[in-house]
């Protein structure tokens, strides 16, 4: 008698289970349809292919991500260098073994980002003017670009000393500088770093990276946790084809995006931690006996002295090797009276903490130093007022100029170089 009852109960249970499963499937299908409809309504119809691509991109970005402040590495003689530039240097050194093409005239460019951009946008015009001159007849100008963003003296001088010891022997060396020597050096001083040391944000983290406090290590652990999570979720999504479903695909993407944000935030905190000023002689260089606080004049005089002595040394090492040397005092927007402002340039002159005052007080000192160097026989081109008569827009930020600006500077440099060569 009990047997039929048990069979009936089992049958009911089976029916209930089937019903539940069917409802679940219907609910999932409805959710899938609703999700797709919602995506469509938002103007971004769900695409399994696009989701797959995004997941793969998130995974690859995570795989290649290294929690460091930049691609900079230590360099023994100039403080730091970009990894890609070391590779370029390797190629240039390899070229030294080959005979130099007949008639090649090498110009080695040093300086900061302004010089680097000049190498990209102004060097062409410089080559044009030089090659058109009869004194360059049959010669082909080749630029060796060793300008580096945020560099300042004595980095350019040390770079040249190093390159000469490697066997480089260019025909001319042009240093475009002045701005960082007063602006970034003063900023260093305001951070308690010696003005002669490299720009603190560029050099400081390389010194302190080896100094891992538990907090920094915890941030690195968080970065690695996020990376591993991204790896696992993207593998699951791609291997199990979860992207075919908009619901599961979106869930995976949401999780991956959250992990990416967590990773980026931890990396940002890690970088910020490394960039935080610390009282470490490795970062700040020799302690200075200083005048009373707020004596910016003393700092600026030191900055200008560094620029001036480095130019004198560059001139000396070039002179004895029959290399033409040209020190170019670059123009800059915050230098009062250096350019009539175009409408678009007015917002760019908004005062910048430390920098504006350093430029406005430092540039007159640089001009005097340049004139003194010239009197000693150092070839100096004071191009600080090269844009003094140009009313059109030249600057796109407070120190970098557009193609027209670079062309103007190129012509001034060409003129000075030709005077030396003729």
């Amino acid at each position, binding site marked *: 008698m009990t047997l039929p009852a048990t069979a009936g109960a089992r049958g009911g249970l089976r029916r209930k289970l089937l019903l539940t499963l069917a409802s679940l499937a219907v609910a999932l299908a409805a959710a899938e349809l609703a999700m797709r409809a919602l995506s469509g309504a938002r103007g971004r119809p769900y695409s399994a292919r696009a989701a797959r691509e995004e997941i793969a991109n998130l995974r690859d970005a995570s*795989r290649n991500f*290294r*929690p*460091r402040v930049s691609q900079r*590495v*230590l*360099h*023994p*003689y*100039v*403080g*730091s260098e970009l*990894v890609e530039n070391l590779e370029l*240097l*390797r190629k240039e050194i390899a070229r030294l073994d080959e005979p130099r093409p007949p008639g090649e005239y090498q110009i080695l460019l040093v300086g900061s980002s302004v010089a680097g951009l000049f190498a990209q946008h102004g060097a062409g015009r410089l080559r044009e003017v030089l090659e058109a001159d009869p004194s360059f007849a049959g010669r082909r100008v080749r630029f060796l670009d060793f300008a580096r963003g945020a560099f300042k*003296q*004595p*980095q350019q001088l*040390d770079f040249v*000393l*190093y390159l000469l*010891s*490697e*066997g480089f022997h260019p025909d001319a060396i042009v240093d475009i500088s002045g701005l960082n020597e007063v602006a970034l050096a003063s900023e260093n001083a305001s951070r308690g770093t010696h003005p*002669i*040391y*490299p720009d603190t944000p560029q050099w400081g983290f*390389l*010194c*302190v*990276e*080896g*100094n*891992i406090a538990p907090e920094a*290590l915890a941030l*690195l*652990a968080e*970065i*690695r946790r996020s*990376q591993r999570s991204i790896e696992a979720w993207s593998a699951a999504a791609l291997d199990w084809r979860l992207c075919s479903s908009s619901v599961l695909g979106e869930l995976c993407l949401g999780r991956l995006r959250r992990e990416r944000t967590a990773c980026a935030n931890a990396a940002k905190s890690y970088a910020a931690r490394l960039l935080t000023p610390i009282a*470490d*002689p*490795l970062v700040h*260089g*020799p*302690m*200075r*006996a200083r005048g009373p606080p707020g004596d910016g004049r003393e700092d600026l005089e*030191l900055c200008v*002295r*560094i620029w001036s*002595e480095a130019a*004198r*040394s560059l*001139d*000396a*090492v070039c*002179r*004895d*090797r029959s290399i033409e040397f040209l020190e170019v005092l670059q123009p800059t927007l915050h230098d009062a009276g250096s350019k009539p402002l175009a409408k678009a340039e007015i917002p760019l002159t908004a005062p910048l903490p430390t920098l504006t005052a350093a430029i406005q007080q430092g540039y007159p000192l640089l001009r005097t130093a340049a004139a003194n160097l010239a009197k000693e026989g150092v070839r100096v081109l004071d191009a600080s007022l090269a844009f003094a008569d140009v009313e059109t827009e030249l600057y796109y930020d407070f120190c970098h100029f557009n193609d027209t600006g670079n062309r103007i500077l190129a012509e001034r440099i060409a003129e000075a170089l030709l005077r030396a060569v003729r």
Partner: protein
Amino acid sequence: MADETQAPSAVPRGWSWTKIALAVLALLVALALVSELFLRGVELARGGAPGGDARRLEIQRLGQVAAEFEPRAPSAGAATNEPDRLLLHPYLGCETAGGVRQLEGELRLLREGAQAERFDLLILGGDGAEELGREALAGELDERLRDHPALAGRRPHFLAFGRAGSKQPAHANFLAYLLCLGFEPRVVILVDGPEELTGGCANAEQGADPCYPSLERWRLPASGWTTDRDALDALLRARERQRELQRLGDGALALGLQHSALLSAFTCGRMRGVRQRLEEGLRVYRAALDSSARTVRAGPGFSRRGEALEACVRNWAESSRSIASMCRARSIVFLHVLPPAPRSGAQDALARGYPRLRQQARAEGERFLDDARLFDADPGSGPDGERWGGEGRWSDEGRRAFASSVAGALLEALDSPGARR
């Protein structure tokens, strides 16, 4: 009926599971007590002190590994008070902590205006320059210089910036750096040559740039840190082991496990296992550091092994030429000195390189003192010559002879026209 149909129990009649459990427990306790007594007996037989002190110390010692572990290369990071400790320097590769303090002291004097009353003699270079800059030897120079008319009554002051183990172009950079800082030496004495040959060739042998600082000196500061994924994983695993070790040690001591020979032996065993895994993790991390920092250490690298010596000679010649140029532009008297070749290190590079350096120096036409054979003229009677000390280094007598020779050449240089200003 139910009792009748039950299968025969595995437990003997009169025993219950509770009794069995209690018996096993009693056996374990007895076993533990016997082990405890046995271990204490062994401890006493081995001459160990009774009581838990030794065991507590052992646990603390194992825990100490955790506290000592620092995930960084020994020379990177914050400065210490050890004067010989190498620190990163943006323009010299590295500098000693003592050297940083020395420069700060000189900068203070500079600011006080001391330079005006002084006749500054800057000594640059490697081992030989560091020797020459030592107080006693500088005193030897001082004595012979003091009354020289070129000093015009000014007090000779030695800026002893020779750094053992450093090589060109760091000396050229050092001069450029000091000039930018405001130093105005009247004389620059450069003592170099051996390090450029031995360090440069050793670099090239390992595929590193001969112009880079010698790997022996630069390797550690340049390998401070890496954020490679593998390295990070190794580092984080090592850190986890460190925490585990700390936890085990602290927990054992908090529970007073050191009072039991058995439990402390068990704890120490576990801690040794964790420490082994920590050390293994650190080995992996250091290997990752080593591989990751290769570009930083080796620079643009060097693949033309047969030409290493030429690259070293060129580095030496070009850098000293740069120093001569910087001096000439400022009317600084420049004396370039080739010191006696050390009898240790890469003898082949020195034997082949010294004639090349001489040849280059002659071609340059700068004031050059060739002291390479200074000690050969008077070898002395000792097994290695009186002027040579142990391990191929100079003896005190050798140092004095070198200082005297440099002083002679310097006086000659100061007598030359144009030396007085």
